[in-house]
């Protein structure tokens, strides 16, 4: 369960978050669409607990242990292998060895990383690195997923597999907040859709079966027209 209440935050003189509120229950996926500089990344950071908001509060059931994060940067150690990275990050979340081994095998297989599992991360291409980042985010079985443009660098097949993974996560009761400026990528998975502009949610509504095209139209209207 994820709760945001009246979130406010400013950097210098710029209002990055302006009274953002919403509640998410297990199984919900919120897709936040907005142009660059709308405050999407700041929102995620506040939800994750990386930034303490200037006003309002965010609450995440399970605390930091329950958060899986995929952001612009992969958060991996270039000189360590894929497996070593996964092992390290899992250890910080106190994942028992047996469980970690199982999840590791499963994620490596699904993200088609088995051939690269013992190569150092710096030897991998951007697309592969993104896949490893996804594995890193999921290795500790997080209940809340905070995703910032997670499809960047993924090819068609990888993106498909990732979508399937996310759908499974949601079906398993995970809460997901997906932030992106690309309406096509996020729509399919979303149960709820929000449009964000200059720190505010200009619209927050259930997806209600709308297609990507319909949402794209609504987005354009809300963000450029309003």
């Amino acid at each position: 369960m994820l709760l945001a209440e009246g979130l406010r935050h400013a950097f210098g003189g710029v209002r990055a978050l302006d009274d953002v509120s919403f509640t998410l229950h297990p199984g919900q996926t919120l897709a936040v669409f907005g142009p660059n500089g709308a405050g999407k990344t700041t929102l995620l950071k506040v939800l994750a607990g990386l930034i303490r908001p200037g006003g309002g509060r965010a609450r995440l059931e399970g605390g930091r242990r329950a958060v899986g994060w995929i952001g612009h940067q992969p958060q991996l150690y270039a000189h360590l292998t894929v497996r070593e990275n996964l092992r390290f990050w899992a250890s910080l979340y106190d994942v028992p060895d047996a469980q970690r081994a199982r999840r590791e095998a499963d994620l490596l297989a699904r993200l088609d990383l088995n051939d690269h599992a013992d190569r150092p991360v710096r030897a991998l291409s951007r697309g592969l690195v993104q896949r490893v980042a996804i594995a890193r985010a999921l290795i500790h079985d997080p209940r809340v997923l905070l995703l910032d443009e997670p499809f960047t660098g993924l090819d068609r097949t990888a993106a498909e597999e990732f979508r399937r993974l996310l759908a499974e996560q949601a079906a398993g009761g995970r809460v997901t907040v997906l932030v992106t400026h690309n309406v096509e990528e996020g729509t399919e998975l979303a149960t709820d859709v929000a449009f964000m502009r200059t720190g505010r949610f200009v619209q927050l509504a259930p997806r209600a079966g709308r297609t990507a095209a319909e949402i794209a139209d609504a987005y354009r209207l809300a963000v450029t027209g309003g």
Partner: protein
Amino acid sequence: MRLLKTGRWITGVGLALLAAVYVRALAFTPVERFQGPAQKIFYIHVPAAWSAMLAMGLVGIAGILFLLLKDPRFDRFGEASAEVGTAFSMVMLTTGPIWAKPIWGTWWTWDARLTLTLFLFLLFLGYLLLRGAVTDPGLRARYSAVLGICGLVLLPFIHLSVYFFRTLHPQPIVLKPSAPSLPGPMLVTLLFSFLVFTVLYVGFVTQRYALSLLREQAEPHA
């Protein structure tokens, strides 16, 4: 603005009093028996070193208060105090050797006051360089506070190591700045000088703080 004017006024008073200190030290204070007129620099250098140390101490305290209370005024004060401290230190470090050369024959001695001031100067320099290297104001304030606090805590250790400097490098002339053993008129001059330097410190910091405030108001977004 009013704060700036107050600052200027205080500084003006301080400078006038400083002239009075000079007059008193040169004309109305007895000459020290062993060291002659050269010893009189002591009335300026000791309080100046003390002011620089005060400046550093206050930077540290401002840092503690900033981290606890998150009030940006403390950060502004810390910056002002550090700049004033740097100025005092630089004056000390340039006049010290210039005075030392004709008197002692060397530009630099590991004299306790000079060494202490050198340390302080390095601390202030680091503080200002760190501030210059960080663009985000929030981050800059936090980093400055951390460094300032470390500087404050270092002060007693500087004293402890400077003592060893002095025992290792015998001075050409041993200067004894120990205040209690000074006879009456010399003590008065010294204390007066302490007061004057404190006034100067307050005056300069007030002005610098005011300028900082004015600059922030003039640029709405840094």
